[in-house]
Each structure stands twice: as structure tokens, then as C-alpha cells.
């Protein structure tokens, strides 16, 4: 080891090495030289907090942002009545659980040595959420008849979820940018899902849609758009593989 304090140069062995093929293992192979170069002038690094804490940090940020949105728009007037209905309550709780589970799963998958099975964690709440929406649609059909299928545009929902969800997804990917060289794909997907699910939960506290089908279509579209956006634009936010 040729580390000299105060002399940040290349180790003598790595200097002017020939370009001719001479790689391979051995006491002075290319990998050994690389190790010497990487160790030379090593700087201390700030250790990342554990993944659970990172997830919690992001959830707190998401809570803050959605809380601000609620403060701006006000809670919907019929909130107490809506939450008394088992269907709506289940839908709200399931979307909240999906967001929390996806955030934790993303933080876990961002570490190389954590099991890939963490990715399955949000599947159960996601299934419950989609199931409760589907069940709501059927219930509407029984209650309202064919009127339940009338689908109007609700750009407001889409805009709300995207406007809140996009910065939250970006914040998540910045917090988890160390996932880039390891498992970028699943972390991008789960990050987008976590943000979208929480924004959808937040929106159902603010805004009222008559029919569950509207919720399913517009919230679903927003979630899908956000997940796709995270997938397409998220890569620059994640660190590149070394």
C-alpha cells in the first residue's frame, strides 16, 4: 500500500500502466490496482440512516405536504358521514396502508442485502384498495342503477394527485438515490406507488366524488400516471452504477 498522507496522487503502481492487455488477477492485477486507487485518499462518509428511518422521514414529509393541501382546501363537509360508511372507510385505510407499505418496501429494496420479498409487502393493501373500489362500484350500481356508470371528467382529481405526488416521488427517489446501482426498477415503481396512494388518501379527505367508478378511474389513472412518470423520469435522480 502506497498511501502517503498529504500526497493525493496515483500510487506508483497505477501510474503509467500499460494499455496492453495485462488484466487478470495476481498481486498486481488490474483489480488490485483499482483497490489501491480507491483506498488512496479515502474520505470519511456520512452513514445513511437505516431504511426504516428513511421511510419514516419520507412519510413525515408526505404527511406535511398533504396536511398543507388539506389546510388550503379544507376538509370535505361530509367527511364524518363518509367515514361512517364501511366501504369508504376501508378504501381510505387501504390507500393509506398501500402508501406506507410501498414507502417501507422501497426503502428496504434500495439496500443491496435486503430480501427482494420486501417488494411483496404493498401487494396485500393494494389488493384491498383496488378491491374496495371495485366493491364500491358494484354497490353504487345496486344503489343508483345505470347512473352509477356515468363517467364525467374529473381533471381536478388527476391534477391534485399529480401535483402533490410528483414532488413526493422526486423526494423519495432523492432519499433513495443509492438504489440506482442496485435495484432501480422496483424502487422507482414502489416510490411512485407510495406517493400516489398517499395523495389519493389525502384527496379523499378533501374532495367528494359521487360514484366509486369515478374514484376508481380518476384516482387509478393518476396513480398509473405517477408510477409511469417515476419510471420514465426517475432514473436521472438515482445514482448511476459505479
Amino acid at each position: 500500500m502506497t498511501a502517503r498522507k498529504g500526497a493525493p496522487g496515483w500510487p506508483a503502481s497505477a501510474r503509467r500502466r500499460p494499455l496492453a492487455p495485462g488484466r487478470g488477477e495476481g498481486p498486481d492485477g488490474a483489480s488490485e490496482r483499482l483497490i489501491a486507487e480507491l483506498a488512496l485518499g479515502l474520505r470519511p462518509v456520512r452513514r445513511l440512516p437505516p431504511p426504516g428511518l428513511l421511510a419514516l422521514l419520507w412519510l413525515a414529509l408526505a404527511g406535511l405536504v398533504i396536511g398543507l393541501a388539506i389546510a388550503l382546501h379544507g376538509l370535505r363537509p361530509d367527511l364524518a358521514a363518509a367515514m361512517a360508511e364501511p366501504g369508504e372507510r376501508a378504501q381510505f385505510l387501504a390507500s393509506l396502508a398501500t402508501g406506507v407499505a410501498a414507502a417501507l418496501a422501497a426503502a428496504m429494496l434500495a439496500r443491496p442485502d435486503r430480501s427482494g420479498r420486501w417488494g411483496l409487502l404493498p401487494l396485500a393493501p393494494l389488493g384491498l384498495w383496488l378491491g374496495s373500489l371495485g366493491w364500491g362500484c358494484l354497490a353504487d350500481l345496486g344503489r343508483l342503477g345505470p347512473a352509477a356508470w356515468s363517467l364525467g371528467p374529473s381533471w381536478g382529481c388527476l391534477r391534485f394527485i399529480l401535483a402533490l405526488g410528483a414532488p413526493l416521488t422526486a423526494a423519495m427517489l432523492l432519499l433513495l438515490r443509492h438504489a440506482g446501482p442496485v435495484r432501480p426498477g422496483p424502487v422507482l415503481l414502489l416510490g411512485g406507488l407510495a406517493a400516489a396512494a398517499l395523495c389519493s388518501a389525502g384527496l379523499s379527505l378533501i374532495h367528494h366524488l359521487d360514484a366509486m367508478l369515478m374514484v376508481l378511474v380518476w384516482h387509478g389513472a393518476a396513480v398509473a400516471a405517477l408510477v409511469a412518470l417515476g419510471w420514465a423520469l426517475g432514473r436521472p435522480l438515482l445514482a448511476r452504477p459505479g
Partner: protein
Amino acid sequence: MAEAGEWESWMTAAQAGDARAYDALLRAALPLLRNTARRRIRDPAEAEDAVQDALLTIHQLRHAYDPARPIRPWLVAICERRAIDRLRRSGRRQGREIPLGDAGETLAAPLANQGEARVAAAELRAAVAELPPAQRTALGLAKLEDLPLAEASARSGMSVGALKVATHRAVRALRRRLAARPGTGSGE
């Protein structure tokens, strides 16, 4: 065999900036990384490249290692990731490339083949020109002008770490490209 927890304590010290512990850890881990890469990649040179990719990723992610957890699974997972990436890339490359046969010597007279050297120099220049700008700058400052890293960093605006990585990649890209040329790489 290293005593239990020795690698972990080396990594913890490396996170605090201990270069000797870091060097010791990476050297001790090299056989593990090589085994991991070779389980996936048959070609020894390609496997060794994957090991070097893994070393760079380990360096990049050293702040993400949690000292409370065993380090071996962490190292193996990173190496596996890089080996799979390399297999995918080489699979794509093989789909696009056609191997060239050996180009025969043009003339028997020894003087006639002096052009070889000039052709080689031109090829090297062309290969350097094709490198991404950051790698070309890093190579030029750190290797050709032989500047100390701190000075190269000040001139290029790149961090010392980025310079190291870019130079390493540039040299490897050149080596691969020149070795892939028919007629070289066999000690001629």
C-alpha cells in the same frame, strides 16, 4: 479465515475514512467477489471486469452499508448485480457484432510493416476521441499530463472520486477496444 466481524469493523473504519482498513477489506473480499462473478460469467476476463464494476459500486455505496448487518451478503449482492448487468450488456453486444477473421500481414518486407505503428497510434487517438468527454478529460489530466489528483480535480472541476472512476473506466474502455482488435493482445 478472517475472524468474525473483522470485515465489518474494517468497513466501519473505512466509512470513517481509514484508507488502510478499506484497502484490507477490499483485498480480503476479492476472492469472494471473484467467486461470485465466476459463478455467473464463464469468461474469466469478463468476470474480472464485473469484479471491478463491483468494486466501483461498493466504493460508491460505502455510505449505505449498515454496520449492524453482516457485510458478506451486502458485497455478494452488489457483485451479483454487476455480473448480471455485464452479462446483459455482453449479450446485447454479441447480437450486434460479427467477429472479424485475422487480417493477414500485407507485405513480407519488414520496412513495409512500419505503418503498423502509425496505424496503431491513429487507432489509439480515435479510440480516445470516442470516449465520453468526462473520461477523456480525466484520462488526459491524470494519465497523460500525469498531474496529481488534486490539481487535476481543480482544473477539471471534477471531484477526486469522480476522476478516479472516470480514469479507470477510460483505461478499461481503451483496453477492451484495443484488445478486441484482431492481431493485438497476443504478444505481437
